[in-house]
């Protein structure tokens, strides 16, 4: 048996795949990945995918944005070149803060959103010029594919295919 054999099990319904995945996991079979045209709700905990921490990143980027905006405006407007605008008090930072609220907010959102988007692109490795790695082109249309490695489960490809054929698959392929 070749070492890097992969089994792809194709389904034509997301709910059948989800039920199949539950049964396979109950039998102790490890599912490497699932390719689908849309998110299958409830699948992630079944195949052991943890909730992403992207939101925490966004929060940190937002804090960086807020800090930069406030520090920048403090330097520009209070320290470096204070201007008398309509007699509004600007001797100290706290006096001028009401006027800084809109830009602080906008800059926080700007950095949080773009920082998060950039992290998302890099973590997913979806960037211009990257080649797609989905095993079948149909998985972006109406097919759902499970990727299982026989070596992960210590069984032969034939045994695994036998388990899978009971789960409502429409096609099982070994590559």
């Amino acid at each position, binding site marked *: 048996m070749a070492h890097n054999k992969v089994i792809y099990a194709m389904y034509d319904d997301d709910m059948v795949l989800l039920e199949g995945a539950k049964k396979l996991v109950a039998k102790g079979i490890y599912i490497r990945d699932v*390719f689908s045209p849309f998110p299958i709700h409830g699948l992630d905990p079944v195949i052991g995918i943890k909730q992403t921490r992207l939101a925490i990143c966004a929060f940190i980027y937002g804090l960086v944005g807020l800090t930069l905006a406030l520090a920048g405006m403090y330097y520009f407007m209070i320290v470096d070149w204070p201007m008398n605008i309509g007699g509004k008090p600007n001797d100290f930072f706290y006096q001028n803060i009401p006027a800084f609220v*809109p830009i602080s907010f906008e800059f926080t959102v700007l950095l949080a959103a773009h920082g998060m988007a950039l992290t998302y692109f890099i973590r997913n490795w979806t*960037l211009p010029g990257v080649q*797609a790695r989905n095993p079948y082109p149909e998985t972006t249309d109406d097919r759902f594919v499970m990727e299982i490695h026989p070596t992960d489960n210590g069984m032969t490809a034939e045994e695994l295919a036998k388990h899978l054929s009971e789960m409502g698959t429409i096609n099982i392929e070994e590559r």
Partner: protein
Amino acid sequence: MHQESAIRKPLILGEKTYGEITDDVLASVTGKANKSWWIVFGIASVMALWGIGCILYLLGTGIGTWGLNKTVGWAWDITNFVWWVGIGHAGTLISAVLLLFRQKWRMAINRSAEAMTIFAVMMAAVWPGIHMGRIWLAYFVFPLPNQFGSLWVNFNSPLLWDVFAISTYFSVSLVFWYIGLIPDFATIRDRVTKTVPKQVYSLLAFGWTGNAKAWNRFEEISLVLAGLATPLVFSVHSIVSMDFATSVIPGWHTTIFPPYFVSGAVFSGFAMVLTLLIIMRKVMNLENYITIKHIEYMNIVIIVTGSIVGVAYLTELFISWYSGVEYEAYAFINRATGPYWWSYWAMMTCNVVSPQVFWFKKLRTNIGFTFFMSIIVNIGMWFERFVIIVTSLHRDYLPSSWTMFHPTFVDIGCFIGTIGIFFVLFLLFSRFFPVLPLNELKTILKSSGEQYKTKAEEH
């Protein structure tokens, strides 16, 4: 699986499968453009070219080619700016606010509404840009030390807040839209067979794979970006309104402006979405996805925001009298009875009176009538900005400097041009981009698709 109440109308009509949704939505991308597309595209291109010509003439000759004068220093330029920004509010409202409120009906319209938003904000940005006169010095608006010396831009000025608000709104909306587009570009990439389109869509799809972890991240980023974009939508038009509200011009200097502008923006944005989608669903055979129910929902938003706008107009009128400031009172008497009375009453009729007809279910579910009303609302919202800007300025404190504003052909040409460019961009979008979010529609097929709903009822 998520179950939906049987009394809710289905959002996807007909016996659709996942594959058929792909076929229906991508028919325009994989097929050829029809005759009506080419005709509309031709007209829009001519308008766009005429507008670009006028803009080049304006930049070459100067702002004097507009009808502005010493008293009316802001007129059609800022009217058009605020009008376009307002139109640009529906897209992100639909995709962000309605996502947070879990309104599934947004899924049929959010993609094209966001595209509309992005194009409208681009058109809005044209106006302050060309109003600068010397557009090659546009980098002055960024916080670079002035002339690279030691003077900074004024962070106390609402005009600078606007620079930050518009650029943040534009770039965040663009990223939000594109992240949603990536999986659908991947669908096109895996479907087209010709070499050049395949390469182009492969590039646009960023190598999207659609594995479980990617979808997990996709849902998280959609939710968080919606959460970030929601206050952003409300902040942008609030800040636009502060351009006026923080000045001391009678008629501008009011605290009601931010909520009043935001509801007006949503009002006009939804009207523009209706204008575009009523045509698009017909031309592209998307009646099963953008249903009468969707149109009715949007009309309900129009009643709500139109009524808020109406209340704001009346409040403004009342406060101008109640404040006891005679200049403030005069500004409003002049609006209603002065030489620009016609624009005031056009605004009142189009924005306050006409949306109220949507209380009748027969009218708000009538497609032809809705289309007519959507245009009326946009005319009304243009007049709202014109009334606020020009009629507040044209009679200032000294009667000797009272004037009228007369648009020149350059004013008119530039405005027509932005409408043309907007439609050119939108038509290209509808031809080459997936106009409905495939991946999102497929997630609601089993809960809101017609055949699944009838099956669930039979059980």
